[in-house]
């Protein structure tokens, strides 16, 4: 029963990592860039919701604020790409990496300025409720995290595999010039994918904040999500979820059965080993070109 409990909490944590990783992978899939500020996006989404719904801020109904926050983050992602990242069009990947790192710094600063640096918790109807199966205690928040994550991953997977827009997004990353020739509005598609990843970040943030407290440095969680994305295979949506769950599951078990101090290095250890042994992840997206 003990192990089962660990598995459930690990799954819930892993799903949050998976959701952040999903944001990376979305942008990577469509623009071949990596958004190092994704963790900070998540933090921002959580804080916007918190600002709307918490009693000491605006005290709006929870579901309304969730919709508002998701909408705002979507618009923010779109505008960010339109105003800032579009100027980077045609420049090297590393430049985009550095730009998004700097963006993360700025977002952290702004969030700290508006909502302060103290940890705060989201007043969500999800927290506090419990489901009991025999001796197994499931937090309602954890169940929600798992359901929403799996549903979202499935939805996005279908979106990329079946819809015209999703296939257009993949095409615009595989070969920009050819995508232009085919009449795909590459620039607008880039903005759309940033909006989409803003939405995913907002959802991740809300779920994360209802599981515990949140402060401006919560964005550093994004590093663990990196580990998740790489382990699962950068560029693969189910891979992001799989990687997130692996990282999430390893953590509580390492914390339980390993001496103190060793447990938190495990996600990164797996990451490094993975990069050395199978650099392109479990669900590899790399196809070797034949000459």
């Amino acid at each position: 029963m003990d192990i089962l409990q660990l598995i459930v909490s690990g799954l819930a944590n892993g799903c949050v990592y998976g959701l952040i990783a999903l944001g990376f992978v979305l942008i990577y899939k469509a623009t071949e860039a990596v958004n190092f500020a994704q963790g900070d996006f998540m933090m921002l989404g959580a804080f916007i919701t918190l600002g709307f719904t918490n009693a000491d801020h605006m005290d709006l109904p929870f579901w309304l604020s969730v919709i508002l926050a998701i909408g705002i983050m979507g618009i923010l992602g779109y505008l960010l790409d339109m105003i800032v990242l579009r100027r980077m069009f045609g420049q090297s990947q590393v430049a985009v990496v550095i730009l998004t790192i700097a963006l993360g710094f700025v977002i952290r600063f702004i969030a700290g300025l508006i909502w302060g640096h103290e940890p705060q918790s989201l007043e969500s109807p999800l927290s506090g409720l419990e489901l009991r199966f025999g001796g197994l205690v499931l937090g309602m928040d954890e169940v929600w995290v798992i359901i929403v994550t799996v549903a979202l991953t499935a939805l996005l997977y279908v979106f990329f595999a079946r819809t015209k827009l999703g296939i257009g997004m993949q095409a615009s990353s595989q070969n920009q010039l050819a995508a232009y020739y085919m009449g795909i509005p590459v620039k607008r598609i880039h903005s759309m994918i940033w909006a989409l990843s803003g939405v995913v970040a907002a959802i991740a943030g809300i779920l994360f904040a209802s599981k515990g407290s949140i402060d401006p440095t919560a964005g550093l969680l994004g590093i663990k999500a990196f580990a998740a994305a790489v382990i699962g295979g950068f560029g693969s949506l189910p891979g992001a979820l799989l990687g997130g769950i692996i990282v999430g599951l390893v953590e509580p078990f390492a914390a339980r059965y390993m001496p103190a101090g060793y447990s938190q290095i495990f996600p990164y250890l797996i990451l490094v080993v993975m990069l050395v042994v199978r650099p392109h992840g479990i669900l590899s997206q790399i196809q070797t070109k034949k000459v």
Partner: protein
Amino acid sequence: MRIVFKTSYDADIRLFKHKAQAFWYLLLFALAILLPFLIGDFLIGEATLVLIWAICGMGLMVLVGQTGQASLGHAAFMAVGAYSNVLYQEHFSMPFLLSFPLAGLTAGVAGALIAMPITKLHGIYLAIATLAISVLAEDLIVIMEPLTGGVSGLFAPDIEIFGFVFNRYGNPVELYWLVLGITLVIVYLYRNMLRSPLGRSFAAVRDSEVSAKAMGINVARTKMVAFAVSCFITGLGGALMGHFATIFTNETFNLIMSITLLLIIVVGGLGTIHGAFFGAIVFVMLPLVISLTRDALTVFADSGSVTIPGLESGLFGIILIGFILFEPMGIYGRWLKIRTYFELFPFYRKDMFRRQKSYLKTERTR
């Protein structure tokens, strides 16, 4: 405008392009030596910090600017330098003159060992791997507590050379001169390396791995050497940083420091030695400017002093975004443009420094 008429191959690889250039650098050198007589002790401390950051920046510059390999984990190698330097002094009672280069070598070897498996990686994968190394290093310092002192940290003794003691507070001016001397040696070695076949092969790997291979360069080995050299220099910088900070813990060399180091060289200008110095100056001066502005505002508005936590990193982020968008070549690139404008007056054209854009193709099919 000066036209250098090249009559021999040496003209291309000389340290200074012409006599006037040598003159200006000598003038700068003289100014650097005389700096303690011009400014107070506090500012000399800051100047020392600028030099130390510049050394670390040059280390990262070898990797990012010259070889084109991103690293988000160089604070880990600063930590290796700082810790090994102090441990050599304490456990083997080595003098600073011996422990200092050995600390650099230790960091270099560590870098080469880590580079071996990860140089196979490209672009973002490399960035993420080095990011993981930076996080791992922080935790490893805590785990290796008997050696490193864990969270309570390690105390760096004063630098002692032939009985002469350098202390940050006791004699900041002498410490400044010492660091200045070390910086000059590193700049000289760096500059010479760029002129050597090794430096050229770095540039070849940066510009195109495929064509580097075609020219007969062993790409994997070149990357490994670049990592080793880069970590060697950064390790030296870290060792000095350890002495300067006098006490350092696992949190001194954290991930933020790794990223800061990268930001410094981007703001300064990638691929140039000048860039490391410009970036270091901006980074060290920023808190000073902020506090001066705050004081001025307090006097002006006659209000209580306002402190905004996280203002420095936020401002630094904004500056960086501005640079990447509007001046990707950094401060040094801007300076080159201004100089060219006056040299060619009135023939300077806007697109002279325009970079070629490339349409992106996926990395996922190779």
